[in-house]
C-alpha cells in the first residue's frame, strides 16, 4: 500500500471499512455461532459441516465434499431466518410484488399456492390417482365416498391477486366426479357447501389447509348423504389456539402476515397408532389421544391433529359401525367429528402405508370407505395409486 497513507488514513476510505467489516463480520459470526440441526420454519433438517475423510483423495470424494460444504455454508449462514424475512420485505414492500416464495399474496391476508398448471409429473399422477379411486369404488360397490377439497382460490376467487393465471381446479374436480360416479362410487362435491359458508372462517390465511370449521361443513354434508346426525359443536368444548403461522407463511415470510387461529374440540376418544409391517390389520400399536398437544408449541401447529400423518391409526368413536378413511392431511381435522357417528374409525395415510388395502378391508368389514384429499395433493400424490392395487 502507498507509503504516504499513514495510520488513520484508513478512515478516509469508509466504504472499504464497511465492506471489510461486513464480510469479515459475517465470516467470523459464521465460525462463532453454533450450527443448527433443523430449521423449524423451513421444516427441514440442515446440512452439517462435512467431515474431512480419506475420501477427498479421490476426484468423486472431493467433488462430494465440495458440494456438501457449499450446502453447509448455505444452510448455516448466521441469521438465515432474518435474511429470508428481509428479502420478503423488500420484495413485497419495495418491489410491490403480489407473490413471495412461491405463494400468491391475496387480499384479506389470504395466501394461495402458486399453481399455474399441472407440472409434468402431475400430468401422470393425476390420471393415475383418478384410476386408483375408481378401481377402489368398483371393487367395493356402494361403499366408497370420494371427497376432493378445492383450494381456497376456488372459494375466494376475489381474493386472488387480479388476473393471476391460477389453475382452474373445477375442471379437474368435475373429471374426478364423473369417473367416480361411473365406477359406482359417490363423489361428495363440497365446493358449493364451502362457497355457501365463505363469509365464515373456513380456510386458514397462512396455511394450505382448511380450518376445523371448514372441515365441519364438509363433514356435515357427508352426514347428510349418509343419513347421520352430525357432531354437535355447541355441546363440545372448543379450544382456540391463536398465533398460528402456517406453511404458506413459512414460504412467503411476509412481514405483515395475519396469523391464524387454530381450533380443536376437546375429545377424550383414544386413538391407536399402529406400526405397519405388512398388509392387513397389525397387532401392535400405541394408544394415545386424538391430539398431539406438544405440537401446539412448535411452528407447524396443524400437526396437533391425529399426531400427524401416520400410516394406520384407529380411533374409537362413540357411534356405531366402522369407517375407513383414506386421506391426506386435510382429513386430520375432520376425523375427530366422525367419533360422533362411528364406533371405529380407521385412518390410512398411503404416504406411510406401503401396501394394498384389500386385506385391511377384508379384516375389518367397513360400512363406508371415505377417500378424502385436497385437490392440491390429489393431483400430485405419488402414493394414492396404492388404493388401486388389489391385495
Amino acid at each position, binding site marked *: 500500500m502507498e507509503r504516504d*497513507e499513514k495510520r488513520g488514513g484508513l478512515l478516509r476510505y469508509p466504504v472499504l471499512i464497511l465492506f471489510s467489516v461486513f464480510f469479515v463480520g459475517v465470516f467470523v459470526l459464521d465460525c462463532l455461532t453454533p450450527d443448527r440441526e433443523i430449521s423449524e420454519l423451513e421444516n427441514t433438517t440442515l446440512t452439517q459441516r462435512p467431515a474431512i475423510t480419506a475420501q477427498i483423495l479421490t476426484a468423486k470424494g472431493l467433488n462430494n465434499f465440495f458440494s456438501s460444504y457449499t450446502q453447509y455454508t*448455505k444452510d448455516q449462514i448466521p441469521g438465515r431466518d432474518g435474511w429470508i424475512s428481509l428479502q420478503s420485505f423488500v420484495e413485497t414492500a419495495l418491489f410491490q*410484488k403480489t407473490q413471495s416464495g412461491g405463494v400468491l399474496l391475496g387480499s384479506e391476508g389470504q395466501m394461495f399456492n402458486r399453481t399455474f398448471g399441472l407440472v409434468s409429473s402431475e400430468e401422470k399422477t393425476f390420471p393415475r390417482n383418478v384410476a386408483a379411486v375408481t378401481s377402489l369404488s368398483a371393487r367395493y360397490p356402494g361403499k366408497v365416498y370420494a371427497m376432493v377439497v378445492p383450494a381456497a382460490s376456488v372459494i375466494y376467487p376475489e381474493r386472488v391477486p387480479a388476473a393471476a393465471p391460477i389453475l382452474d381446479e373445477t375442471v379437474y374436480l368435475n373429471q374426478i366426479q364423473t369417473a367416480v360416479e361411473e365406477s359406482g362410487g359417490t363423489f361428495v362435491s363440497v365446493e358449493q357447501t364451502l362457497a355457501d359458508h365463505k363469509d365464515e372462517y373456513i380456510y386458514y390465511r397462512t396455511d394450505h389447509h382448511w380450518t376445523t370449521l371448514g372441515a365441519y361443513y364438509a363433514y356435515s354434508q357427508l352426514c347428510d348423504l349418509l343419513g347421520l346426525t352430525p357432531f354437535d359443536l355447541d355441546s363440545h368444548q372448543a379450544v382456540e389456539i391463536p398465533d398460528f403461522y402456517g406453511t404458506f407463511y413459512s414460504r412467503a415470510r411476509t412481514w405483515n402476515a395475519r396469523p391464524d387461529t387454530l381450533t380443536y374440540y376437546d375429545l377424550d376418544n383414544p386413538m391407536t397408532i399402529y406400526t405397519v409391517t405388512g398388509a392387513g390389520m397389525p397387532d401392535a400399536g400405541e394408544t394415545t389421544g386424538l391430539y398431539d398437544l406438544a405440537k401446539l408449541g412448535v411452528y407447524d401447529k396443524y400437526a396437533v391433529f391425529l399426531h400427524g400423518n401416520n400410516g394406520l391409526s384407529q380411533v374409537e368413536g362413540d357411534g356405531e359401525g366402522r369407517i375407513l378413511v383414506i386421506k391426506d392431511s386435510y382429513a386430520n381435522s375432520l376425523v375427530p367429528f366422525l367419533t360422533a357417528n362411528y364406533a371405529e374409525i380407521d385412518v390410512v395415510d398411503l404416504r406411510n402405508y406401503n401396501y394394498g388395502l384389500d386385506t385391511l378391508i377384508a379384516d375389518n368389514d367397513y360400512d363406508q370407505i371415505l377417500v378424502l384429499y385436497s385437490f392440491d395433493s390429489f393431483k400430485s400424490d405419488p402414493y394414492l395409486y396404492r388404493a388401486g392395487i388389489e391385495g
Partner: protein
Amino acid sequence: MIFSSIIFLFHFLPFTLAAYYIAPAKAKNTVLFLCSLVFYCWGEVRFFPVMLALILINYLCGLGIAWMDARPAGRKILLAAALIGSLGMLFYFKYANFVLNSANALLGTSFAPIEGISVLPLGISFYTFQTLSYTIDVYRRNVPAEKNIIDFGAYVVMFPQLIAGPIVKYRDVAAQLHVYKHRYSLAQIEEGMTIFTFGLAKKVLLADAVGALWTDIIGVADDASITFVGLANASTALVWLGILAYSFQLYFDFSGYSMMAIGMGKMMGFEFPQNFNYPYISASITEFWRRWHMTLSGWFREYVYIPLGGNRKGLRRQILNLFIVELLTGIWHGANWNFICWGLYYFVLLAVEKLFLLNYLQKGKIWPHIYTLFFVVVGWAMFVGNDAGVQFGLLFRKLFIPSGGVSPVYFLRNYGVLLAVSAICCTPLIGKVWDLLKRRNWSRVLTVALLLVVSTAYVVGSTNSPFLYFNF
C-alpha cells in the same frame, strides 16, 4: 462456485483476499494462483488436468516462440501447436458432440456421442480466448514471453474473470503481474469494493428477480416441480413481456458478473477492461456491438477481423470478414444451431447497416433506438430458442402471430416496479444518480451498505440461481 453464493461471498472471498493482502509481495501471485485453482476445481475436480494442460501448452509455446526469435518457421509451428492445443480442447468439450449429432442428422451417419463431456469445464470459452491472446501477442512480438509459470498460471486461472469474463488480454495485466510492491492502493481497493457491490446487486436484485418472469412462462429447466404458465398457453402480449424480461435478465446477469470481476480485479490491484457500456441505449446494431460484451467483440476484431483484412480490402472482402466474425461469435456462444442462426442474424443486420442503413440511422432521433431494441430483443428470442421449455418455432409463432391465452396483466402487476427499475438501470440515468450519491460520504456509504445487506438477503433468501452464461 458462483459469485452470488454464500460459499463464495462469505468464505472464499474473505479468505482469499486476506491471504493475498497478508502474503509477502513476492508470494502474492502464488497465493492468487493457488486460490484460483481451488475456485476452479470447486465445481468439478475432474477438469483440473484440462486447466493444467492449457497452461503448460501456452506457457511452453510462448517460451519457444521467444527462443526461436530468428527462425520464422519454428515460430509458426509453435504458434500452430498452441492454437491447435487450445482450440482443440475447446472443440472437444464444447462442439464435438454437436458436430457428431449434426453429422448424424444431416448425413445419416451413426457416430456415438462422446461420453462424460455433457458438462463443460468451467469457463473454458473464456480462458481459452485469454490464453490465445497471450500466445498470439508473443508471436506478434507485442509482449515478451512470460518466464515465470506461476505468474502465467495466475493470469490464466485468475478467479475474478475465469468463468464469465471480461476476456482480459495478457498484455492488459502483464505489467501489473510483475509489480510486486505497491500493487494496489487503498483508493483502488475501495473503488473495487464499490463496483463489486453494484455488480452483486445487479445480479441478485435485478437479473435473478426479473428472470423469474420468464421462468414463470417457460418453467425452471432443472426443477420440474415448479409450476409455470407454459409457452403454448401464453398470449402474444405475455410472450413479448417475457422475452423483454429475459433481455433484462441476460444483460444484468452478464454485466453484473463483469462488474463483480472488475471490482475484485481492482481489489487485487488489476485493471480489467470494461465489458458493457449501456448496450440497450444504442441507436444502431453496429453501436450495440460496440457496447455489448466489448471484450469479446474486441478479441474477434483484433485476432480475426483485422488479420483478415478488416475494411482495408474493399467492400466485398469486408462483408465476408463480417460474415466470418459473426458466424464465429454465434458459435462461441454455444454449440447449437440457434446460436449459429443468431450469429448470422447479426451478420445480416450489420451488413445492411454497413451498406446503407447507417446513414439513415444517424439522422434519426427516436426510431433508431426503437429499431435497435426491437432487433436485439428478437435476437434474444433466437438466443433462448433452444432452452428447455422453449420450442423455437412455437416461440416465434407466438411472437409474430397474435394469439390469445394467459394475459400479461398479472405479470405486469407483480413485476411492474421491478421492470421499471430495470429499465432505468439500463440507461445512464442510474450512473447520474450514483454521481449525486457519491458526492457526500454518508450517502455513498449508506448506498453501498444498503445494497450489500439487501443483496445478501436475496442471496440467502432465494435458492441460488446458477449463472446464465455458465454453458458458454
